[in-house]
């Protein structure tokens, strides 16, 4: 049995805005094993992004326990969380989120720079990652000079360059046409084949089926789980 990477127990998230409590997540129990590809589905507003943000240490849960690789992460300082994010988590966003003033190469290099990696090592990893997504010929371009599909491939390269434990993707195909969307999904499949652990939010049932397991959210709760958690 593969080792457990992520373990959520009874996690809840309450947003407080103008005296109004929004229960974005309640009673979430979730275990993710190494090498799994988990799809999170659900209607708009059901808490998918919130869950992903908590998994990615971008946000903190208001209740419950959360362990990554056997270590509790709830009470880490912002600097330590930044460190964990940087080292163990790769993000792919719906809107690509490349920095417009940096070249493709520099965008991919960014997390490695924050890690304090030596330049030579950085260069090697960036080239590797760009190769994997088929974008090495564009490494000197600015993001504005790329198509949406190309930008998302660069974003994938940035996510994998640091060799993270987990890849998180929030509707990675949301802003792409179907052809480009399929290309990105193919890329993710390849990463999964190569052993990466993937957690992906998607609206598209066809893409969800590519995952080894699917979790459905409704109103902040897990209402259905399909697929085996054994991968």
């Amino acid at each position, binding site marked *: 049995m593969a080792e457990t990477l992520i373990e959520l127990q009874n996690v809840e998230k309450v947003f407080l805005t103008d005296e109004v409590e929004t229960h974005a997540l309640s009673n979430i129990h979730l275990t993710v094993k190494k090498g799994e590809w988990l799809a999170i589905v659900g209607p708009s507003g059901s808490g998918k*992004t919130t869950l*992903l*943000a908590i998994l*990615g240490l*971008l*946000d903190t849960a208001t209740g419950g326990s959360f362990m990554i690789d056997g270590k509790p992460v709830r009470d880490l300082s*912002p*600097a330590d969380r*930044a*460190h964990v*994010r*940087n*080292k163990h988590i790769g*993000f792919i*966003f*719906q*809107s*690509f*989120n*490349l*920095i*417009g*003033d*940096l070249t493709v190469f520099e965008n991919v290099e*960014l*997390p490695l720079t*924050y*890690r304090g990696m030596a330049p030579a090592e950085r260069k090697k990893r960036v080239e590797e990652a760009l190769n994997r997504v088929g974008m090495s010929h564009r490494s000197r371009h*600015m*993001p*504005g000079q790329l198509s*949406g599909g190309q*930008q998302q491939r660069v974003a994938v390269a*940035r996510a994998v360059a640091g060799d993270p434990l987990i890849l998180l993707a*929030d509707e990675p195909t*949301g*802003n792409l046409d179907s052809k480009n969307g399929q290309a990105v999904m193919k890329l993710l499949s390849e990463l999964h084949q190569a052993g990466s652990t993937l957690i992906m939010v998607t609206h598209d049932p066809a893409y969800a089926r590519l995952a080894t397991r699917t979790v459905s959210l409704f109103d902040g709760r897990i209402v259905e789980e399909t697929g085996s958690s054994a991968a």
Partner: protein
Amino acid sequence: METFIKDLRFAVRGLRRTPGFTIAAVLALSLGIGATTAIFSVFHAVLLRSLGFGDEQRLVWVTAEQRGYGWKHGGLSPPEVVTDLRTFPLFEASGGVTRQTASLFTDRAERVDILAVTSGFFEALGVQPTFGRTFTPAEDLKGNDAVVLVSASAWRRRFGADPSVVGRSITLDGRPHQIIGVLPEGFSYDGQRDFYRPIGFSQEQVSNARGYRFIEVVARLKPGVTLETTRKELSALAARIVQDHPNNYPKEFGWGLLADPIRDRFTSTTREPLLVLLGAVLLVLLIACANVANLLLARSAQRGREFAVRAAIGASRARIIRQLLTEGLVMAAAGATLGVMLAMWSLSALLASAPRQIRDLANVRLSALVLAFSIALTGVTTLIFALLPALRASKVDLVSSLKDGAHGSAHGGRLRSFLVAAQVAISIFLLAGAGLMLRSFGRLVSVSPGFEVEGAMTAVLAPAGPTYDMGDGDVGGTLPGYAARRRYFADAIRAASALPGAQAAGGIDRVPTVRGWGQTYFIEGFELRPGEPNPTDEMRFVMPGYFAAMRQPLITGRDFTAADDAKAGPVVIVNQAWVRRYFPGRDVIGKRFRLDELNQTRWRTIVGVVGDAKDAGLDKPAPPVFYLSALQDPPDRLTVVVRGNVSAAALREALAAVDPSEPVDQVRPLEDVLATALAVRRFPLQLLGVFAALALLLSALGIYGVTSYAVAQRTREIGLRIAVGASPAGVVRMVLAGSLRVVGAGLLAGAAGALAGGRLIAAQLYGTTPYDPLTYAAICIVLGLVAVVASGVPALRAARIDPMDALRTE
């Protein structure tokens, strides 16, 4: 019209929606307008405005020069004023003038500042009395000179504006003077004075006293006569005078007559500091403009999308421009209104702290011209930069704005950075000026004046009643007034030293740093080089105990004693600078000298040497000085100095009791005398300091604004960086580095500019070069700290950006 009102309402609403921006912009505008207007009003009043004399172009100021000594603008003697110049054919009228004080006795004795003039003075200035008449030539002579003119303000204050005041009598210096007229409202020559009276020459002075040089002359040229011709004719006249009186004008004097526009009389000393201040305040205005431009640029970038949308749904460009213009106008109007208020307020603050040495500050009014200028400048700036977004709106690149995948590059970022760097550069320039002047001031304050400043009280006695009459006032006079003075001064010192708390008391005619008399004399045993004239040095009169009271050390010999009186042989004390100048390294006790005047045949013997005092001012090296015994040769006035814990009131009371008919004047601690000497320097320093602070404040605002704006623009980018692992400290560092790069560039440019412009203020510095590294280091640190704080606040805000913002789509 209706659309304008609609635009107006919309503009006000828009500005109110962004109060931070509006307040910052209006504040920057009003600071710029206010400071510029205040300073320029002073500048205008002092340097540009009419002096209030009729037909000023024809007025000249006549003084003497002694090229041999490099002296300019020296005084003229009675024969020159009354005989030579009065009949000078190019003058329509001319008159002499000198400053005096007198004791006015009403119910108590009071010292008043008086302008003493000759007949022709008012005629030359073109001033006619409101009531009565001006002085006649006959009244130039002693015996006829007990007449007085009253200023309009004194007429109201002292005589209840009574029109029948002409013909009444007042008691000046113990003698009745008849009021012969009232001068017109607003007239002043060199400041407010209550009374004007004849100088009052003796017949002997008018005929012979050519060495008695203390009068300046104003003259009105005949119509059509140029300054050029006047100068030529005056030098011909001077040559004739020298030829006719070779004894009074030795060749080596290089004596001559100068004629200058009357304005030079009043502005030659204030022009330079005022120009420096004017330059400084214009720089502040420039910073304010840059600031407003920057704020508007940031705002326009934020609104770029709004205008793109408006344009897309069909708003005409003219429509958008009109709306922006209205907004700019509203802002400029608010800034101008506040600026005027600020100008009025700062002007009165300015005048309250200004030294009296600057003429006619009381008459400074807010200058409409200047106000218009600064409002126009800021208004134009506001409008230009308010319009930028409209001009940009048409150029919005739709394709790239639709491709919202890439974030970060901000429009106009480079221009904004440049404006911030420029503000920083100007601030550094101003800070350098203020810093250097502050350093000079610090040096000056810490200069040892050669005596102990703290813990002494002073008061001035200037007996002027008939009892104390000195005639022509020569040293060694024999009138009974001389003996009366000796008694009066001795009694005064005795009364002062008897006060409880007094440790020592003495007196001097003028306490340093007030200048004393320059006196020409002959030193026995000092060899003049061929053709070198007899030396002229500063002569002071002291009472026994003065040096002890001042704690000015006695180096060798002895102090004067009560025995050094009129019956004893004349004695003198010199300072160390005197010894260095004439007998370096030698013992001067017992050496003798003789004052170079007609009746001065007596030899005076040096009995002591005292340490140097900064007699000529704190910023000048101690000059050679010799001290006569006031008990032998009583001076025109005596400054009593009491060391110890003595109150002003007690000293005043004790001295008034010595002779109730004589005023006791300027009772103040010794340190105040020095503070007065420093006031002329402190004033521009304070102003420059205020401007530098303003500049710093505005720059901080600029740095803060631009950094905040950049952070707001980059929210998503920074969120993304945080998401992929930038630590909070890393984000702070990144934002700070970005802002400090710009600040650093401005700092370097400003420092380079300040170094290059250093000589602009070199003349106002003391004890420091314009390139003082310590000052530069200090201001760079100050500005660096300000920049760190100003960009640190938005940098900390950046570190708290929620990385979720990067995850959420727009």
